[in-house]
């Protein structure tokens, strides 16, 4: 029981950190649907670095840096070139899927290093995830930078008139967000399941993407949601935990079904008149000046 719960929280750690990265980008108006691709890059290159150098630290740093670079690439397409963010994001996913399979295949197999020590049986990154949640909530809602980020995501024109550089703010967010996604990928391949095999994430990046919509762009709901989704994911890996209820494949669809339900609820008139629009108004729209 305890074991199952720990595993669930460990799974939710990866969802939380990756989804926080996506959340920052989306609050600034940039949608990155290629989150799975960014995580694959971070996980694979972090894994290779750690395996060849024997240093966890270097592995994580490389994972984070690679994530930031991919974020920068996405930023270049969607901010500087003003292209379609969904197209760019899908490109990043397909690229990540193909390229990491190619780069990583010689390293297939276990990492073969001493495991990262646990705290009360939990991965230390779980606590990092909680700290990150609080920090990002604080930045977004209590600081001037956060106000700028939210403004750019709601209405870039207004932000511009108020003297804020839309491009700079958005770049900051996609690069920072990419770093978090890369970090999440590295946590997966170095700590959660330190074995490399092709396409090992199995759609965890897409769960994180769904989580952002589910969270209504609120870091705390995101944290709660990721614990819920982590548990459901764990159930899909161990369907025998609640025997006879559902197969693993059905369990795996539950997070998406919940997200669909939440999105449906958010798009109702009742919700909008009561809570206002939760979605960043300019999400996914390129800001190109004439």
């Amino acid at each position, binding site marked *: 029981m305890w074991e199952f719960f720990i595993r669930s929280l460990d799974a939710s750690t990866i969802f939380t950190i990756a989804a926080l990265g996506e959340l920052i980008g989306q609050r600034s108006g940039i949608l990155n649907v290629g989150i799975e691709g960014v995580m694959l890059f971070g996980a694979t290159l972090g894994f290779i670095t750690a395996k060849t150098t024997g240093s966890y630290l270097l592995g994580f740093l490389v994972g984070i840096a690679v994530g930031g670079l991919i974020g920068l690439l996405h930023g270049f397409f969607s901010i500087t070139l003003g292209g379609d963010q969904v197209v760019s994001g899908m490109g990043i996913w397909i690229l990540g899927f193909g390229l990491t399979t190619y780069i990583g295949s010689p390293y297939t197999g276990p990492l073969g290093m001493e495991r990262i020590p646990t705290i009360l049986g939990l991965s230390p990154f779980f606590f990092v995830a909680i700290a990150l949640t609080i920090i990002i909530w604080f930045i977004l809602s*209590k600081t*001037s930078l956060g106000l700028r980020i*939210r403004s750019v995501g*709601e209405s870039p024109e*207004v*932000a511009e*008139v108020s003297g804020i550089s839309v491009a700079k703010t958005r770049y900051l967010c996609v690069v920072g967000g990419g770093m978090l996604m890369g970090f999440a990928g590295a946590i997966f391949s170095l700590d959660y399941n330190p074995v490399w095999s092709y396409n090992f994430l199995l759609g965890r990046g897409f769960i994180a993407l769904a989580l952002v919509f589910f969270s209504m762009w609120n870091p705390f709901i995101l944290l709660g949601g990721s614990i819920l989704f982590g548990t459901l994911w764990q159930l899909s890996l161990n369907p025998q935990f609640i025997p006879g209820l559902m197969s693993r494949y059905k369990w795996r669809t539950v997070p998406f079904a919940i997200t669909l339900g939440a999105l449906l609820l958010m798009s109702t008139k009742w919700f909008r008149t009561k809570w*206002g629009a939760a979605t960043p108004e300019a999400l996914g729209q390129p800001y190109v000046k004439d």
Partner: protein
Amino acid sequence: MPACRSTSVYYNHIRSLEVIDITPIEYRLFRVTDKDSQTGIQDNVLLTEECPVQKVLIQDIKRGETILEARGITKRFPGVVANDQIDFKIRVGEIHAVLGENGAGKTTLMKILFGQYQPDEGEIFIGGEEVRFKSPLDAIDLGIGMVHQHRKLIPAHSVIENIILGHPHAGTILNLKRAEKEVLEICEKYGFSLDLNAKVWQLSEGEKQLVEIIKALYRGAEILILDEPSSALTPMETEKLLTSIKAMSRGDLAIVPFITHKLPIVLRISDRVTVLRKGKVVCCIDTSEATEQSLAKEMVGREVIFRIERTKVEKGETILQVDDLSAVSDKGVVALNGVSFSISEGEIFGVAGISGNGQRELVEALAGLRKPEGGSVWLDGEDITFADSLKRWQLGIGYVPADRIAMGSIADFSLVENVTMNYYFDHEYYRRGVLDTKKIRELTNDIIAEYDVVTPNADIVAKCLSGGNLQKLILARVLSRKPRLLIVDLPTQGLDVGATEFVRNKLIDAKKEGACVLLISEDLDEVLSLSDWVAPIYEGEFMGILPGEDAKRELVGAMMAGIHLDEESA
């Protein structure tokens, strides 16, 4: 003159730069002349360094003295001279109205003063010091604030978040308490009241405008430019706004020029008025010396007749018959509650009322855009209660929607294509499913010529037209179909005097030709001067239907506010 010739460096301490050599742009050489020396060539100044600009403090300048002066401002756009040698002065503590028709260059001038455009020629002085704005930020730093016609606020954020956005003292960690306190001081000073923690989407249009005004003041604005401030407001909100403007001009800091084309507002509130026509200043006088007639004459360039003679046309057959019509609004509430009326050939039926009392539902139910909940509509004896919109066009209903940008036209379509929108279904204009573009183009050119639509040609996109010209085009394409029933919703909203007069005359022409007209308007004078029948509407019901001669202003005003005709006469 200037109070502040302080030690700090203005970037105009380099008073002039003489061009010695022009080679590719990186190699431009300038001879810098000191401020006290002779002035050199002013054009083509290339400022290579960011120079700090310091704000002129208005406290240092006495009330009534010039704070901002523009000299010889010229701005050309391809094909037009938007501003032609404009001289313009604003004094401390005055409300200065800038009046002009659409396209007279008001907005261009204000955008230049706010740094959104750079003038091709001319100088701007603040407190006697020459300034150059590279962007609105420079203007803001020098104490100029602008409230745009279209709101520049973030609906999902709270009032205070909108106000402090981009403010240099916002702090790394937002100090909302301090900001709130400072903003409340401003509110108190000018007598504004506003819930700072409300979300902007929850506010009314007037409150949103107030947020923008406060934002500008909090940013340190001493010269506040209001662009068409009353255009989106209800009459009551306009009153509130005018009170606020008065309050600000009494204060020692705020100076409020504002641009509008609403003559009564100008006369009521401003101290001085500058009239622009075709990019030039035609006069600048104290408002006390002006009358509605004289200003209109300056604005349009000829006498304008405000009183339109009500032309009696021989009453013909009944065209439109509406019985007990009801409809619900988008929110699902009953917005139109059983109205009955009929209009005959040669009549204008005016519905007077404040927006949101069911006019929109009435119009849409008649145009076939909204399914009625009950009642019936007859056109020339045919039941069209549930006919679709296209069918109604074919039967001879012409509809000019209130929102000419969103509903009346497609912004990125050319004028020809926009005219096609009312003709594509006409057998005369297509053959075997293919549009006869030549014929439509001819028609468009005829329309442009007959209605005096100012445009380079028929192929430019609709969004390039000014409001008045776009409205002319829309009205023209509807009228050219010779409709039996013409529905016009707020036909002169946001139009200048000249265009308004034009549109009203066209309505009268339509009536003379035997059409019947349903006129929806918030402008009481418009309804009263044009209509043969006046029906004040209140909460989805007609408060009575008066013959045009009996519709007295006070009576109609009271009925619009919800007093039923019977109660009034009793």
